[in-house]
């Protein structure tokens, strides 16, 4: 329930920076698997981490633990929103928060990007992915199809180099 600002930055902070359960690279890798598999990556992350400690039960428990409370709360907020969204102050607050929210998503990406500088060739994959998605506006499935062959080749080389 303390996942303010989305659970992703919080999960990274708790698992890597505070408790050191996972190394930064492990986190990127697990998150990478969770993100390469389609679907909400935080649910995937919960399935991964939960099942690592207690199999299917652990996976189910961590997904439920992560979602039920917040879903209830967010619906209460939605009720409040329905009543007060006409207020200029509420509109302003939400605009401010969404600008920060976008920044938080981007910074999760940039933090993971730091690890890639140990093998700079890999940045090519990141650049191709961004170009395919943002410049050529390809569907997400296509972006992954196009970028993954090069990603696998470079990753193979990186795995043998490091």
């Amino acid at each position: 329930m303390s996942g303010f600002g989305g659970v992703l930055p919080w999960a990274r902070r708790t698992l890597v920076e505070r408790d050191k359960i996972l190394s930064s690279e492990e986190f990127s890798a697990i998150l990478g698997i969770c993100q390469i598999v389609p679907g909400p990556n935080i649910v995937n992350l919960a399935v991964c981490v939960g099942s690592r400690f207690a199999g299917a039960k652990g996976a189910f428990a961590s997904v439920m633990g992560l979602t039920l409370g917040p879903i209830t709360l967010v619906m209460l907020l939605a009720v409040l929103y329905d009543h007060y969204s006409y207020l200029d102050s509420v509109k302003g607050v939400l605009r401010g928060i969404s600008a920060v929210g976008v920044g938080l998503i981007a910074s999760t990406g940039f933090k993971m990007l730091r690890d890639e500088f140990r093998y700079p060739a890999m940045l090519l994959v990141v650049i191709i992915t961004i170009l395919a998605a943002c410049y050529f506006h390809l569907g997400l499935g296509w972006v992954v199809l196009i970028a993954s062959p090069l990603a696998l080749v470079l990753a193979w080389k990186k795995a043998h180099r490091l």
Partner: protein
Amino acid sequence: MSILLSLFLKLSAFSLVAFGGVNALLPVLLNLAVNQEHWIDLQTFSDYFAIAQAAPGPNFMTVTLLGWHIYGVIGALVATLAISWPSSILIYYLQRFILGIKDPHKKQSIQYAAAALAIGLVLSSAWEIALQINHGLAAYALTLATIAFTLFTRWHPLYFIVLGAVLGLFGFI
């Protein structure tokens, strides 16, 4: 009932193309809900994104709120379940498969490749959502400041949410 079924089927299908998670999916979700199906207008979608970011909990809450908007509590639960179930089953088995690979180089390669793709997808999505949701220079400045401070300090993300809320309250954004 038919809108509920349509919501469930479309989001379930999305679950299977949501490479990069719901954050990467947001621009696509926005397009479906706002432009194609007219379930919701852009302003409400943006506001739901903000509520989902501000509330403690996973950021796929934007999907939950979309469901709420369409069909109340049942809609919210259906939307959340729809976006989660196909991928949860997939990751459960895929993770075991990947952890089961004995060759360490092969395992490392898959993980490195996946990490690189994820970085590209998350950054792309942030860029595209920013273009849709941020209005005006002040909003972009706040986004950039958030990126800079989260990269170079260890402050809790909540501080930035509060800062954004306060700046918005006084009409700066």
